[in-house]
Each structure stands twice: as structure tokens, then as C-alpha cells.
């Protein structure tokens, strides 16, 4: 019955052209771990699948003096195996590791996790906290946009028709900096985050926090960057009172809903706990990173 076509272009230009020609009826197939479920349940009925895994630029990891360029179609397992990345951005790796099973990570991609625009996507808060930028190509050419500005709501993004996220760009981790991501789920694995929290912070030579970014998942219609929570620890030793302020700011910024995975009340109750615990891990990592 299926009228659906499948194309596996070898270049970005070809992929962009295919998407443009399909005028909205096409879907990008990266890891497929969400797309195939949507196909199976009949939630989407595209006329064309554009498999982008044959495009070298999208499936490579480049690490140089300016940072990391993570191809948007690199599998999550490959990312977890990249030692330099894990060394510098353990919080980003925390987020990646929470996504699905080993099997799912063997297929799923950062680009997919980002572009599906689930408010609970585990890699996104850590990328936002890390200040990651999405590299995008489309009919109008290339552009770069902060990861925080991609998703606008569940399943909705700022990407225009025909645009593809090709890579996620991470800077080099600064000295005395560390990041962490934690989430809450009822089970230890295989669940969707009820709340997620990512913290990136930098300490000065005296151990005072000079820079921080706090991002939260599953407590609003998209992952949130919470400058108020960061401000709570900047200029402090990230001690108990500062962490309590960070937790309170995280809670205040959250606008969660009730759904089958958690109540609004519960999310509000634990978002501060998760943010605080993530900050403690990030602090520990920053101190070790000399």
C-alpha cells in the first residue's frame, strides 16, 4: 500500500534538493528511532524518506583547537566512545547515555534528538548548558543557531522547510570548568525523563564560580535555559546556600504540565533537586579539571 519513496543522497546539496522537491511531504531519516515508530502507528504518512546517513559531513566527528563538530547523524554510541569528547564534555555524554537503550543509541542521533523537539529529550539540556550551536543547511544556504533556539514546543522547531541540522558545535571546555546532566525517571533506564537538569560552570583560580549555565528538560514545552539559576551560583563557591538558590530559581522557571509520566506538582518538587545534584557533579568535575 505504501507510496513512500526512499532516497539516500550522498551530498548535502542532493539532500536539500530532495527535501525542496518534496514540498513538505518528506521526512529526514537519521537514526529512525522515533521516525519508525511514528510510521508504524500511522501518525505520519510521508511521501519520501531522505536517509542522510550516507552524507560524510553528517556522520563524522571533528575535534580541533576550536572545539568539536559533531555530525548530526553520528550515532549516540559513537559519541559515547569518543574519548576526547567524553573527557571535555562529560555532562553532554551523561545526557546522551540516558537516551534509550544501548540498541537505541546504536542508531539514534543528536540531530534527531534535537529536531524531534521533545521537551524531555535528554541530550538537549546538556547541549544548551554547554552553549552548543546547531549548524544548519537549507535552500537559503547555511546558518548557525544556538541549540536553545531550535525547539519551540513539542514537535515544533524554528527550522524552515527543507532545512537540515548538519552538526552540533561544541567549544573546547575551558579550564576549571565542568558540566553534568541528571534526570529523574521511575526506572533506572528505558524511561523518558520526568525532569532533566544540566549545569555547566567555570571556576576562577580561587574556586569562585565565574560562569554558569543551567538548562532544564521536561518542565516546559521545550528545554529551558535558566539564567536566574545560573546567576544564583555565579560569584559563589557553589556552596549550600548558593545551591539552594539555584534549586529555587530552577523551580521558579519551570512551567510543567500533568501527563502520564508525571504530575506538575511532582515535577516542580524535584526540578530543584535535580538541578542542585547536577550542579554538585559539575562542580566536582570543574575542580578536577585543572
Amino acid at each position, binding site marked *: 500500500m*505504501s*507510496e*513512500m*519513496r*526512499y532516497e*539516500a543522497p550522498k551530498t548535502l546539496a542532493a539532500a536539500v534538493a530532495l527535501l525542496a522537491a518534496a514540498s513538505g511531504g518528506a521526512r529526514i*531519516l537519521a*537514526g*529512525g*528511532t522515533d521516525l*519508525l*515508530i511514528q*510510521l*508504524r502507528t500511522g501518525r505520519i504518512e510521508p511521501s519520501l*524518506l531522505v*536517509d542522510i*546517513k550516507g552524507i560524510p559531513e553528517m556522520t563524522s566527528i571533528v575535534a580541533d583547537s576550536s572545539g568539536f563538530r559533531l555530525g548530526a547523524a553520528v*550515532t549516540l*554510541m559513537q559519541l559515547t566512545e569518543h574519548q576526547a569528547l567524553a573527557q571535555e564534555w562529560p555532562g553532554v555524554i551523561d545526557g546522551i547515555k540516558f537516551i*534509550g*537503550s*544501548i*540498541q*537505541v543509541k*546504536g*542508531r539514534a542521533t543528536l540531530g534527531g534528538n534535537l529536531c524531534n523537539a521533545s521537551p524531555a529529550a535528554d541530550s538537549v539540556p546538556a547541549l544548551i548548558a554547554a552553549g552548543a550551536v546547531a549548524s544548519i543547511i537549507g535552500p537559503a544556504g547555511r546558518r548557525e543557531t544556538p541549540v536553545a533556539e531550535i525547539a519551540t514546543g513539542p514537535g515544533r522547531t524554528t527550522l524552515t522547510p527543507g532545512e537540515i541540522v548538519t552538526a552540533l558545535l561544541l567549544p573546547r571546555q575551558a579550564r576549571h570548568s565542568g558540566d553534568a546532566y541528571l534526570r529523574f525517571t521511575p526506572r*533506572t*533506564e*528505558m524511561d523518558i525523563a520526568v525532569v532533566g537538569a544540566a549545569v555547566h560552570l567555570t571556576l576562577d583560580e580561587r574556586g569562585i564560580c565565574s560562569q554558569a549555565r543551567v538548562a532544564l528538560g521536561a518542565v516546559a514545552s521545550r528545554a529551558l535555559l535558566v539564567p536566574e539559576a545560573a546567576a544564583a551560583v555565579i560569584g559563589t563557591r557553589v556552596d549550600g546556600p548558593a545551591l539552594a538558590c539555584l534549586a529555587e530559581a530552577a523551580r521558579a522557571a519551570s512551567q510543567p504540565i500533568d501527563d502520564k509520566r508525571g504530575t506538575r506538582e511532582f515535577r516542580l518538587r524535584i526540578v530543584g533537586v535535580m538541578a542542585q545534584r547536577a550542579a554538585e557533579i559539575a562542580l566536582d568535575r570543574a575542580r578536577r579539571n585543572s
Partner: protein
Amino acid sequence: MAKHHVSATVNGDGVEFLCATDQTLLEVLRDELHLNGTKEGCGTGDCGACSVMLDGRLVCSCLVLGVEAEGRRIETIEGMAVGQELHVLQRKFLEHAALQCGICTPGILIAARALLARNPDPTEAEVRYWLAGNLCRCTGYHKIVEAVQDAAREMRGA
């Protein structure tokens, strides 16, 4: 819509098959290639019963399209024993009573082999977290974890 003609390697043998775009690798293995050892428990990547290796990566075959297998190397449970010789993991699963109904067993064996290939001496926690994507409703996982660790011991020659 014409079907896709796909050439791939399954358990070391070259195969060719025809599939529609929306057919999953799991459906291709079972319905086109008649390799029924790979099981479907959920079709959504949540149970791991359909685990196979795709170019050396552990994946859920229900989350891969058949057409994506073009030129790829696939390993399934049918290729795990060599001739009469069971893989150490298969033998240890029998010896440790690590299976009951057996529907999850092929997927767990494939996943466990992938674990031991990268980590020859996993801790209990490492085994449990690696296998978290493989649901088993019969055993409570106890004997599965024991069997994997014992197989690792034997494979290390310890």
C-alpha cells in the same frame, strides 16, 4: 511503488531481498529471509527482543528499515553457534538456567555478546545497565547476569 532490491550480508552469507520502504529489517529477517530467531516483542524499540548486529553495532531491528540494510553486514542469533559448537554465552545460558520462555533469549544473547566484545570483564552493574534494553519477564534477570559474568570469565580464560 516498486519494491527495493537490497543486497546485504547476513551471518556471513550474501543475501538479496525485495522490500517496501516501510518494511523494517525485523520484518525482512522474519518474513523475507525466514530467519525467525529474531523476535518481535513490541515493535517500538522498548524490549530488545529483536536485537541484531548491524555493521558491528547492537541495534533493534524493528527500528531499522530493510532498505537501510543495503551493503551492510547483519548478524543474528542464527549465526551465533559455529557448526555444532554453541557460543560460550549460549552454553552458559543453558548451564545457569538463564532462560525460561526463551522469547527474549536471542536478543539478550546478541546484546551480551556485544557487551563482552567491548568489555571482557564487566561488573554486575555494567551487565545490568548494558542489558537494560532487553526486557525479560520470566527470570528476574538473576541467572542471566550470572550466566553473562560466567561466560566472560571463561572467555577471558580466567
